[in-house]
C-alpha cells in the first residue's frame, strides 16, 4: 500500500501539481514539498507528492552499476575459451 510512483511535474498551481508518468496525467497535492518546480521529478503516494527525486544521486548510482557491468563484459571477453 506504500506504493509511490515517480512522475514529472508539468504544471504547478498553488498547492497542486499536474504530473505525468508514461503519458498519463495526475493531480498531486504538494503540501509536503514547498520548493518544487516544473520539471522536477516527484514520487506520489495517495495523491500527495512525498519527496522530490534526486536526479544526480540516481545517475551516479546507475553509472556505478553500469561500470561494474562493463567491467564484467570486458573480463568475459578476455577470458580464454
Amino acid at each position, binding site marked *: 500500500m*506504500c506504493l509511490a510512483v*515517480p512522475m514529472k511535474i508539468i504544471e504547478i498551481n498553488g498547492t497542486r501539481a499536474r504530473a505525468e*508518468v508514461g503519458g498519463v496525467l495526475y493531480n498531486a*497535492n504538494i*503540501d*509536503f514539498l514547498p520548493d518544487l518546480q516544473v520539471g522536477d521529478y516527484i514520487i506520489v*503516494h*495517495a*495523491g500527495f507528492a512525498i519527496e522530490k527525486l534526486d536526479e544526480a544521486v540516481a545517475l551516479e548510482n546507475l553509472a556505478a552499476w553500469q561500470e561494474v557491468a562493463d567491467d564484467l563484459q570486458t573480463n568475459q571477453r578476455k577470458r580464454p575459451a
Partner: protein
Amino acid sequence: MIKFIDEYRDPQLIARAAAQIREITPERNINLMEVCGGHTITIFKYGLKKLLPDNINLISGPGCPVCVTDTEFIDRAIALAKMPNVIVTTFGDMVRVPGSRGSLQSTKAEGADVRTCYSPMEALEIATGNPEKEVVFLGIGFETTAPTTAAAIQTAKARSIGNFSVLATHKTMPMAMKTLLDAGEITLHGFICPGHVTTITGPEIYQFIANEYKIPCVVAGFEPLDMLEAIFMLVKQIAENQAQVENQYRRAVKPGGNRKALEIMMEVFAPCDSTWRGLGNIPDSGLRIRDRYHDWDATKKFQVDIIPSRQNPACICGAIMRGVRVPPDCRLFGKVCTPENPQGACMVSAEGACATYFVYGERL
C-alpha cells in the same frame, strides 16, 4: 522509457548485481526480512529469489497495512457503514477484508454506501459534495500514508467541513520490528527496510536495531536493481560483521525524512498503542487523532456497538505476518482461500504475502 523506473529494470545491471552478491555471500544461512509488502511483490514479480544463492532466505514481514489491521477495526467500519446517512470511504483493498460477519463489500451489496478512493483528499471532496451525509474515511497505513490523512483532517478543520471524520488505525513501523525481534521466534540477520515509510521518517528510526540488536538495516527502493543492491549491502555488512543503517534508496530518502510531512502528521496525530493482526497489542506502534481534532475523529463522533470479533480459526495470517510460517503452510491456501474468496487479510491485499504467493507462486 519511463525515467526512474526502467533504468532499474535493466537485465544487464541486474545480472551484475546478482553476480556481485554471489561473490561475497558467506557459506552460512542468511535470513533477511523484507518488511514491506511492496518489496515482497518485487521479489516475486521479478523472480529475484532465483538469482540469489540458496543460503539467502528472504522472509516477508508485517509491512502490509491491510494485512495487519485487526478484525475489530473492520467490524467497526462495517457498523459505521450500516448507519443511516453515512458514507464510508476507503482505499480499495479494505473493502474485501473479511470482518467477523461479512466485509465492507458485502455490506455495500446489502445497500450501504461504501466508496473506494485513491487519496484521503478525495474522501474530503465526497464530503463537500454530500453536505447532508456524514463521510467517514478509514485511515489505515504506515508513516507513508498517515501524513496524507493528517493533511485531509487539517484541511477539513481549516475549511470547517463538519461532515467529514476519520476512523484511524494508522500504524508505525519501528516498534513492530522490535516486537518481532523480542519474540525470538525467528532468527534475522538483516532488515530490508521499507523505502517509502523511510521517505517520510528518515533512516534514523532503525538506528536502535543496528545498535541494540546488532542487526544491519538497509533502506531499499522498489525496483529489482534497488532490491538486489540493498541485499548486496546487507550481505556485505553481514560478511564483515557490521551492523549499520544504510540507505540504498538515496534518490528518494533523505536524512531526517520529509520534515514537513512529519510535522503535519504529528500536529494531527499522537503516538498510541495499537493492535496488529498476528503481533497483538504493541505499545507506541499506532497513531491516534489528537484531542484538538476530536470533531474529525469518528470514534468520538459515532457510538457503535460491535460484537466480540472472530475470524476463521484455520487462517494462519498472524504467523505469516511474524515471518514464522509461509503461505503454502496454510491448509486454506489456494483451496478455500483465494483472491476471489479470501479468508484472511493476507490474501486480500495485492501486497499481502498470501496473494503474492498465489499470483506469482510458480516463480518461487
